[in-house]
């Protein structure tokens, strides 16, 4: 019985990273906030590098609540798009597809988004990880958590519902 040779690790990484890069580079608002993504396998971590422009309370100072909310929404939408596209990307035939030009899936639309502000966002980098709790044909529910210095001390969390593209 002949067994297929496994894909070289470099090709796998390049495919995943290039798709993720295209997904985030194509969205002006992600660039405007300066949100970056780190990938470990299929796990994404969103990073919001600190900039003075993100401040909403100059006395404390603290990151603008709207910015925190926006960061969490960006992390949620990216996770949802990424996790849905993952199967397409990893279902074989990867070698024949040119992932630098393959069309990306349309984006889900936010139906509602509820943010719980647990602590002020300090003037330093913030991180977020989102988890898709349910992804149906039409709707998805996503939970996202954000922290700064300690992973266990969240400064904000949110739940959102999204309309999946047709």
């Amino acid at each position, binding site marked *: 019985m002949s067994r297929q040779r496994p894909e070289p690790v470099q090709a796998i990484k390049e495919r995943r990273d290039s798709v993720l890069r295209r997904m985030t580079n194509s*969205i*002006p608002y992600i660039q405007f906030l300066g949100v970056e993504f780190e990938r470990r396998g299929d796990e994404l971590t969103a990073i919001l590098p600190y900039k*003075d422009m993100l401040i909403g309370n100059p006395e404390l100072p603290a990151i603008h609540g709207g910015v925190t909310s926006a960061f969490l929404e960006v992390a949620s939408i990216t996770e949802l798009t990424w996790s849905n596209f993952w199967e397409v990307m990893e279902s074989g035939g990867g070698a024949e597809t040119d992932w630098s030009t393959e069309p990306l899936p349309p984006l889900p639309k*936010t139906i509602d*988004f509820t943010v719980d502000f647990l602590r002020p966002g300090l003037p330093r980098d913030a991180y977020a990880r989102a988890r898709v709790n349910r992804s149906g044909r039409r709707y998805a529910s996503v939970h996202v958590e954000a922290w700064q210095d300690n992973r266990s001390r969240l400064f904000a969390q949110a739940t959102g519902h999204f309309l999946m593209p047709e």
Partner: protein
Amino acid sequence: MPQIGKAEAQKFVDRLPHCRELNIRVEDAAPAQVSMSLPYDARLIGDPDTGVIHGGAVSVLMDTCAGASVRMHPENGGALATLDLRIDYMRAAKPGDSILAEAKCFHVTRTVAFIRVRAWDSDTSVPVATASGAFTFTPISKSERPPA
């Protein structure tokens, strides 16, 4: 008691670096009630296929407007912070349109303020988004209170 009017509300917004960056303008202000606008800006696009503004930018406008309505409440003594905010997105904002938000702080307890916000583009028949939430704030000191 703090002064309450459009100029004070604009001063509140202008002190926030992120709002200056987005060019958020106060359109009107009254006690516990503020409206403000966010001009269309290509940097805020969330869907490059349609040119529609990202929900995150709308949430910045909603949160700012809500915060300002709390600031403009006669019981507010200064500092405030968002406790929670829920935003419902009814429809996509029209690319090219400014977004106008109207916030009302409809109830306060000693340190908690409850707010509602609505936002529209040039079509005022259906809101683009609505929001409700709670803020915490520092109440005015006794000495600032007008005599009963």
